[in-house]
Structure formats: structure tokens, C-alpha cells
């Protein structure tokens, strides 16, 4: 197995474009603090899209219920803060536990049936969790949601909407995104990650060649759920509110749009797609606040029909 590991280590190396991408993000946040709130939103959306890429892009498992984990992660951070644990890092880490657990428990539902079955199952889980959050208003604040505050990061860097809060929030989100993309990158390039691609290509053949699809799907869905949970916690902490709309269908649909815009299967696609999505929304909504989604829709149609060389190919970093 040593030669297998040597090969994988070679693939671990970071490219110049990849390093430049991250440095440009840091520089952008520092240089343009007035836009840090928007960048923060895009980074969180990028992390959310990365979570979907792990299951859709790498493994070929479709989902229209990723918002379930986003919402649970957000409420975990909010409930924890309201219980007196205001450390934002703790909130983000704590979000991993319930989301991974729910992901692990619901993953077996994805093992049978077609893509349509999986779309319905994932959507159904998101609906159920959203309704549970609505019903358990003692814990979640019900339709009013939960307002809360978080302590400054490391006791020094305030996160929020005022002063340096947006910039600190964006840098925090960037650090978390970088850490999780690093993990995802290692994962995708490990024998486990490579075998996920084999499962995506042909599950039956992969099985006959000794690759068990079932436990791999359960494992990657669990990890994906945790990633989405962290994204939800980040959004809640940086906006300091958790509300029921975090579970809504449009979030699951939008994150899929972002991934399709950026390109699925190479990890950076979701991040780039989220950036494009948020940017287009920001620019177009300034002109037509009510109809900006028309242009997103048009862009999607153009991408799917004509844009075989996807947007992200222009700035493709690796693979």
C-alpha cells in the first residue's frame, strides 16, 4: 500500500492558483471592509455548497434537503449561546454533533431507490426538521426564531454587524471554510474519496470490484451533514439570529444552483458558484430588487444549455 500512499501524497500538493485564491480572499476582506458582510455571506454559502458537493459532486447522491442540517447547525449555536455558552468557536464545533448524528441516522434512507426517491427523502427530512423546530418553540423560539449574542472570538475579535464585526466575521468564516475545504480536499484525494468517485460512476460495478457503496454513502453523507451544520452555525453567529427560514426549501434549491453554477465535483465549484450567485444577486437586486432571481434563472438556463465549459473552468484551480 505504500506506493498507493506515495501517489496520494503527490496529489496533495497545493497549486499556485489555489494558494493565490485564498490569499486574494484574505486581501479582499482586509482591503474592502465595507463589503465584508457580503463576502461573509458568500463564504458561508460557499461552505454550504461544499457540503453538497461532497455528496452530489463526489458521490452522485442528489439532495434537496441540505437545509435540514444548515438549520440544525444554526439552532445548535443559538441554543448554546442562549444557554450561556457564547464562544463562537464552541458553537461552530458543537453544530457538528447533532448534524452528523442526524446525517448518520437518515443516510440509510438514501441507499435504495432512484435519484427521485433521494430528492423526495431529503426534502422530506428537511420539512420534518423545520416543522419540529416550529413546534418546539420553547427551545427554538418557534416562528419568532432565536436572537442571541456571541462573545468576541478568542476574547478579542467582536463578530457582528457593527464596527469591525463584519470584517472579523468574514475572516472567521474564511478560516472555517479553509479548514473544512482542507479536510474535504484530503478526503477527496484519499483512497476513500477516490472510491466515492467509483461509486458515483457505477455503483454496481464498484461493488463487484470490492467497493462497498453503502457504508461509503453513509460516511460521506454524515460528513456532508456536519459541514452544512457548521455553515448554518456560522450564519447564525454572524447574523446573531436563528429562524425557521433556515430550513426552507429555497435554501436547499439555492445551494444546488450555486454548485451547478460553479461546477460540481472539484470542491472549489461550490465556493466559486456561491460567490457568483451572491455577487449577481447583489448587483442585480440593486437594479431590480424584486426580480433579481429572473437573472439567476436566465444564467442557469444559459449555463445548462450552452455553457458546457462552465464558468468555473475560467478559474479552475485543479482537476
Amino acid at each position: 500500500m505504500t506506493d498507493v500512499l506515495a501517489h496520494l501524497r503527490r496529489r496533495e500538493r497545493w497549486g499556485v492558483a489555489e494558494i493565490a485564491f485564498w490569499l486574494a480572499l484574505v486581501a479582499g476582506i482586509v482591503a474592502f471592509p465595507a463589503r465584508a458582510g457580503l463576502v461573509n455571506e458568500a463564504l458561508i454559502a460557499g461552505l454550504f455548497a461544499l457540503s453538497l458537493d461532497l455528496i452530489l459532486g463526489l458521490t452522485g447522491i442528489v439532495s434537496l434537503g441540505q437545509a435540514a442540517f444548515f438549520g440544525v447547525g444554526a439552532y445548535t449555536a443559538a441554543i448554546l449561546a442562549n444557554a450561556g455558552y457564547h464562544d463562537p468557536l464552541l458553537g461552530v464545533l458543537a453544530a457538528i454533533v447533532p448534524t452528523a448524528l442526524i446525517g448518520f441516522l437518515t443516510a440509510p434512507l438514501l441507499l435504495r431507490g432512484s435519484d427521485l426517491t433521494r430528492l423526495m427523502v431529503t426534502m422530506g427530512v428537511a420539512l420534518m426538521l423545520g416543522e419540529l423546530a416550529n413546534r418546539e418553540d420553547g427551545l427554538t423560539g418557534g416562528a419568532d426564531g432565536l436572537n442571541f449574542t456571541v462573545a468576541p472570538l478568542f476574547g478579542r475579535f467582536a463578530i457582528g454587524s457593527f464596527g469591525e464585526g463584519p470584517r472579523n466575521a468574514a475572516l472567521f468564516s474564511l478560516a472555517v471554510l479553509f479548514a473544512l475545504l482542507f479536510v474535504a480536499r484530503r478526503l477527496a484525494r484519499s483512497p476513500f474519496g477516490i472510491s466515492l468517485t467509483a461509486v458515483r460512476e457505477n455503483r454496481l460495478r464498484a461493488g463487484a470490484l470490492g467497493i462497498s457503496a453503502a457504508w461509503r454513502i453513509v460516511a460521506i453523507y454524515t460528513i456532508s451533514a456536519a459541514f452544512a451544520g457548521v455553515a448554518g452555525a456560522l450564519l447564525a453567529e454572524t447574523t446573531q439570529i436563528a429562524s425557521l427560514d433556515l430550513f426552507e426549501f429555497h435554501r436547499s434549491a439555492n445551494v444546488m444552483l450555486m454548485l451547478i453554477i460553479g461546477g460540481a465535483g472539484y470542491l472549489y465549484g461550490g465556493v466559486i458558484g456561491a460567490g457568483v450567485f451572491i455577487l449577481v444577486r447583489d448587483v442585480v437586486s440593486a437594479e431590480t430588487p424584486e426580480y433579481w432571481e429572473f437573472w439567476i434563472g436566465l444564467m442557469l438556463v444559459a449555463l445548462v444549455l450552452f455553457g458546457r465549459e462552465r464558468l468555473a473552468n475560467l478559474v479552475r484551480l485543479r482537476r
Partner: protein
Amino acid sequence: MVELLRVERLSSGYGAARVVNNVSFALNQGQSLALLGRNGVGKTTLINSVIGVTTRHEGRLFVGGEDVTRLSPHLRAARGIGWVPQERDIFRSLSVEENLTAVARPGAWTLARVYEMFPRLKERRRNGGRQLSGGEQQMLAIGRALALNPKLLLLDEPTEGLAPIIVDELLAAFQRLAREGLSMILVEQKPKKILPFTDEAIILNRGAIAYAAKSAELIADPAALEAHLKAAG
């Protein structure tokens, strides 16, 4: 001799359709079997039944004495059944090396050893699966099955549609594997290619065993071989 594979009164097919009927045979460790017959007699279905991707109607399968009849394909692979599918079915979005890595298990067959057997794969190890020629794809399919470190290698028409020079290269590789003691079941329509390095031969007809003999006996009596194949056709 230690028994490696035993197929007992196996009937199988796809859904309700039976293709393989009441087939029984055994293969010892280190032995190879030539599975012969015309098109459509059930050779591929029998191979697919051993790996576990068909519908089993009756019968049982044992690998190394263990009943694997109810095991799923990936568990059968874990018991040491390697498979080279007729359509090669390499993972096209993975590179050559990733195709090998995806299935590799610890054992004597390392990537280096696979590359030593098929140097062309080493030259093309960074190329994507979709960039390979038919011969290279077949080498990769065989290399991938070896990277699993199988006890038994199932090869379904491995020389089909390949240039003669590639066929010779592959046949040399099979002979080497047989010499090294790897058990194989080779499906082939042209028996003369594989009988020289297999121990046993089975001719299938309409999903059932029409004739079974030592490979050496069939080599020694080509007229009988031809007659059996014609009768089976």
C-alpha cells in the same frame, strides 16, 4: 489440493429469466479453468453469478469452503474474487493510478507490481480512463482486478476486439499469472488461445455444462474439441 471455488447446482439469470441451469463444478487453488462456448450460451451470466450480480434461483457457491451464496458482491470481492468485466468498465473520470487505488487492498500485488506486468500503464498512470486505447483499458481492468489481490481472477473475454499484438501481450500475462499460481476462470470463444495454460475446461450450452474435461485432453484432440463446440453451438 485445496478447493478454492465450488459451484453447486447453480441456476441463475436476470429477474425471472433463467440463463444458467444446474451448473456444478469445482476449482482448486492454483488451477485455472477455461470456460468455453459460443455466443449467448451463458458464460458471462455464469461469471456474473459467481461475483453475485445476477438473480440466483437455486444452488450454492463456496469460496475457500465458506458459503458465499448470500453475500453481496463487495463481500465476495473481499473473500478474494477479482473480476475483469467483458466491457472493461474502467472508471472513466479517474486516472489510471486512481483506478488502481480505488480498489487496492494489501497484498503481494502492489501498484509497482502491476506496473511491472503492464509497463504501459505506468507510462500512462496520470492519464484519465477515457484517454486510454482499448488495449490499455483492458490492461487497466486486469491490473485493477490484481490490485484487489484476489485468490481467484475471473476474466470475461479479455482479448475480445483487441489488436493481435495486444492479445499476445495479454496472453503472456495470463500465462505468467497461471505459472505464479493464481487461479483463474477465463471466458473465451477461441479455445486455442487459453487451453495451453489452463488446467480444466468446461463447454457451456444453453446455460448448462455440455462437456467438461482436462484442458490437455482437448488440446490433444482438436477434432473432439471442435465437435463438442459445434454440438454446443
